[in-house]
């Protein structure tokens, strides 16, 4: 992207971090967002006393973008993996920044579009009443995220029980019970790092019918 070649921009907004430096921390008030110019940044969250990596971002990626909207606590931490060069922008000069960097503006539109969809999709899971159906819908959602999956066949979802519990907003023990049950029924095969779903269409049908009946 052309903006990365602009050294003036770096003079003005550039910041550098050493490996393992925290760029911002989960729950810290967020006021700034970042563009990666060099190096990799790890997005992590502490869940049930374990640090989980949510994403690894590279050159050209944006993070902390929720700060554009309003100051609110960070939902995850950003940690430098290498020697990292970033452009750091404050909410206040966002308008001026957009004016000078329409590419950035376009990129942000895409990021927000994705975020909205993901957030809405998660809300749909949370709104389901029955825990079993929630867990099924998490698997449906994960299957939607990979366009290469053949939903007519058994599919493999790279997900842990912990992650399913996070998505469903449920206790891990409850999720464990439900997944074990589905395992016994032969609907899924449960592994430490993945779940094989035999017939995701089946789950989709169940979830959809429950969802339809929710408001009637």
């Amino acid at each position, binding site marked *: 992207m052309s903006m990365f070649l602009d050294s003036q921009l770096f003079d003005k907004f550039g*910041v*550098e*971090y*050493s490996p*393992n*430096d*925290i760029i911002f*921390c*989960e*729950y*810290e*008030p967020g*006021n700034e967002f970042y563009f990666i110019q060099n190096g990799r940044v790890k997005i992590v969250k*502490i869940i049930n*006393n374990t*640090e989980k990596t949510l994403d690894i971002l590279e050159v050209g990626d944006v993070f902390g973008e*929720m700060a*554009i*909207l*309003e*100051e*609110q*606590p960070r939902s995850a*931490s950003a*940690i430098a993996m290498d020697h990292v060069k970033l452009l750091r922008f404050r909410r206040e000069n966002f*308008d001026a920044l*957009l*004016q000078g960097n*329409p*590419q950035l*503006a*376009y990129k*942000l*539109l*895409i990021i*927000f*579009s*994705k*975020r*909205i*969809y993901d*957030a*809405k999709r*998660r*809300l*749909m899971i*949370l*709104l389901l009443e029955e825990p079993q159906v929630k867990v099924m819908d998490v698997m449906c959602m994960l299957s*939607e995220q990979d366009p290469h999956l053949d939903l007519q066949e058994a599919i493999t979802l790279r997900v842990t029980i912990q992650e399913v519990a996070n998505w469903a*907003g449920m206790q891990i023990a409850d999720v464990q019970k439900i997944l074990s049950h589905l395992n016994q029924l032969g609907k899924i095969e449960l592994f430490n790092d993945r779940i094989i779903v035999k017939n995701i269409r089946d789950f989709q049908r169940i979830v959809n019918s429950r969802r339809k009946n*929710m*408001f*009637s």
Partner: protein
Amino acid sequence: MSNGAMGQTSGIVTRRYKHGSIVYFENDKSEYIYILKGGRVILTSLKVDTGEEVKEEIKPGEFFGVKSSLGKYPREETAQTIGETVLLVLTLADFERLVLQNVNVVRKMLRIFSNQLRRIGKSQREVLGESEAINPAEELFKIGEYYYKVGRVQQAQYAYKRYMEYYPDGKYSGASMQRIRAIESGSTGGGDDFMPPGPAAPPSPPVRGDDTVDFTDFSIEDEKPAAAAPSRSPLDDFGVDAASSSPLASEMDDFFSEGKSLDFDGDPFGGEANGKGGKGVAENFYAAMSKFSQEEYQGALALYAGILEVHNLKNDSEAKIFEKAHFEIGRCYLKLGKFTEALTAFSNMIKKFPNSENVKNALFHMGVVYESVKKADKAAAYYNRVIPMEPKDSINKLAAKRLKAIENG
């Protein structure tokens, strides 16, 4: 097909629709983005949380189908025409070109998107029952604790320092400072859980023989009654329960007085290698607190006074520190036995920041000043004023305790 109206959009297809045509159905997958050129378009969708049908009319010149196209996910609504309708149909590439020429359009869209995202986030938190449960200040401290316990002290240090920057009065400020010190001294063993600090002990009143200072200039009426109104703390924005944060004043006294092996020379927060720039307001504030803790009140005073000279405060947290420094100057004078200056400082702070969360503490300290110079009636008046002030915390208790002591002679 022509699109003469928009010169810069050459290549974009214009499409005409009859009344009642479906432009796309919910759940369709398509990369097209539309601009309404003439006629009417209604978008129909179901609200995720209530199942309620929502209709939205697109105004001429407006885009639709943007989000699902950009995010590459199925349409979330059905788009239908009313009357003869003309649409411009854009591919993603067309849209990108158009947007690059008109950033204002993007800005408007981002604002709409951000509102949507915020609403969804709010609904999520409601469903999860998280709206009140999460206290960002406490959680930030816990992040520090997590890294501290797994031995990643550099990251722990960051979280503690941020905690101190944002919540210098917070419940865990003492604990954070202690951790910071432990990390800096290299003694990071242990890792006991910090209990939330209990009610702070009263600061011991400075004992002073001479009672010759003239305090007649000060009366309770000097301070604006606005101070009695519940003050809105900047922390409210983060959902922090102001009542749960005990006052820095007494807490830090306790905290620092425990530390026998203080090795806190100079600025313990200096030399940060995190690219955040040189010594800022926050760093100086910590340095001042450190000096204060070592009873170097003159040095602390100088640092706090320096903060008052700063005119370009960078953010809310700096503004908060700026405000707090006004209060701390009063405490330095109090410790130095310069009671007139202390009263002036507290009084100035209250006048300058009548809605500050520190007002109550300043009033309390004015009581302490009067008590120090044996003006019990005046001290009692200040304590009486502090006692009913919201939010109720350890300062109210301290005021009540001191009032009782005065009344018992």
